[in-house]
């Protein structure tokens, strides 16, 4: 039947799109679960690190690591921006980058320069187009990043901190609240704030250090910062997948609505054509008879 060929084609193409979005939704759901598991697996390391660092703060009140000292004069700040590599995940990256831009503007109003380092394609292309000073970047980290992928970018920022090029370091990433909600947050990495003494120790004791206390401590601090950035990256991946899942679900739902509307229009047109044909036949027969 020739009726509504265009409508039928349109329905078919929407159905194809719906198939894709539905598949993407399911892939994102399974990837999200895996990312959440990785997120949990990365926690014990940072917790242990924090415990050791707070022990150290107790045991060594006279030696303060530069990462623990607050700097009086803040002239430049550094941001590590963690975004996703791929799009189609709703407003996830937009919200995050909006936060970065507002924060940067606030610093600039105070006369403080901002230096960036980006992880993830979306943030890199957006922020470089906006004319920010990007010191280092890392993209295409995939769904299962390793700490090894981040060493370089983190080191650039830590070196800048050591050399006094930046006086504070923040990390910006999405926080996984739940599947429906992801919140962009900026957290301060340096100077480390969370090294407050946890409980009062009964007696004074110290570690034996091998080789030197300073060396061991330096190493520990670098590892600690890296693990925090890694956690941010893993959490951001979980957020990305969750956001994509929700976005694709609503896309599939919208496609379903479109299809049912079009189907209604198509059925009406078909019924009208049949009615017309019958009335033509009837009136033709009446004219002959």
């Amino acid at each position, binding site marked *: 039947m020739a009726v509504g060929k265009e409508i039928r084609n349109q329905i078919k193409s929407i159905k194809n799109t719906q198939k894709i979005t539905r598949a993407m939704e399911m892939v994102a759901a399974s990837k999200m679960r895996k990312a959440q598991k*990785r997120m949990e*697996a*990365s926690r*014990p*390391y*940072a917790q*242990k*690190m924090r415990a*050791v660092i707070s022990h*150290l703060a107790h045991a060594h009140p006279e030696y303060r690591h530069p990462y623990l000292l607050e700097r009086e004069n803040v002239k430049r700040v550094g941001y590590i921006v963690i975004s996703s590599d791929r799009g189609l995940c709703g407003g996830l990256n937009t919200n995050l980058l909006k936060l970065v831009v507002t924060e940067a503007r606030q610093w600039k109003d105070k006369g403080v320069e901002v230096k960036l*380092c*980006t992880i993830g394609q979306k943030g*890199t*292309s957006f922020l*470089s*187009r906006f004319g920010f000073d*990007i*010191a*280092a*970047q*890392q*993209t295409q980290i995939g769904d299962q990043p*390793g*700490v*090894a992928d981040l*060493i*370089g*970018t983190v*080191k*650039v920022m830590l*070196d800048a901190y050591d050399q006094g090029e930046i006086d504070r370091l923040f990390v910006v990433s999405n926080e996984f609240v739940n599947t429906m909600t992801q919140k962009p947050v900026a957290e301060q990495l340096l100077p480390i704030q969370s090294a407050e003494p946890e409980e009062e120790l009964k007696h004074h*004791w*110290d*570690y*034996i*250090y*091998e*080789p030197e206390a300073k*060396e*061991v401590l330096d*190493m*520990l601090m670098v*590892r600690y910062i*890296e*693990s925090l950035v*890694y956690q941010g990256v893993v959490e951001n991946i979980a957020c990305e997948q969750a956001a994509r899942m929700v976005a694709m679900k609503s896309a599939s739902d919208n496609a379903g609505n479109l299809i049912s509307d079009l189907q209604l229009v198509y059925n009406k047109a078909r019924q009208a054509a049949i009615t017309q044909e019958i009335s033509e036949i009837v009136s033709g027969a009446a004219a002959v008879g």
Partner: protein
Amino acid sequence: MAMTFHVDIVSAEEEIYSGKAEMLFAPAVMGEVGVLAHHTPLLTSLKPGEVRVKTPEGEEHFIYVSGGMLEIQPHVVTVLADTAIRAADLDEAAALEAKERAEKALAERKADIDYALAEAELAEAIAQLQAIQRLKQARRH
């Protein structure tokens, strides 16, 4: 029965081992260390190598670490394992790479702009062609 202590071996990516141990060997930078319960507090860095854990049941676990930290307290021993081989010059190389990528991205941004410009010019040219065609058709009628 011998005294035991708790061992945690964690890396930034996952928890590798957690359990009771009778003795633990680890490749510290100054030489391999063997740890029994009630060891004095010690903090040291590790070389790439093997951590051996002897459980009270007499089993022995071998875990490869590519460096990291060893934290010893009388009843708890923690190995903070690295997931990659680390060395100052390797880290430096990684940092340089990250910087280069940033510079490249900036260079590519220019390419992006060229592309956008070319696209705009193309769109203009197409619009002009269409206008000319429409004029021709109008004249024919």
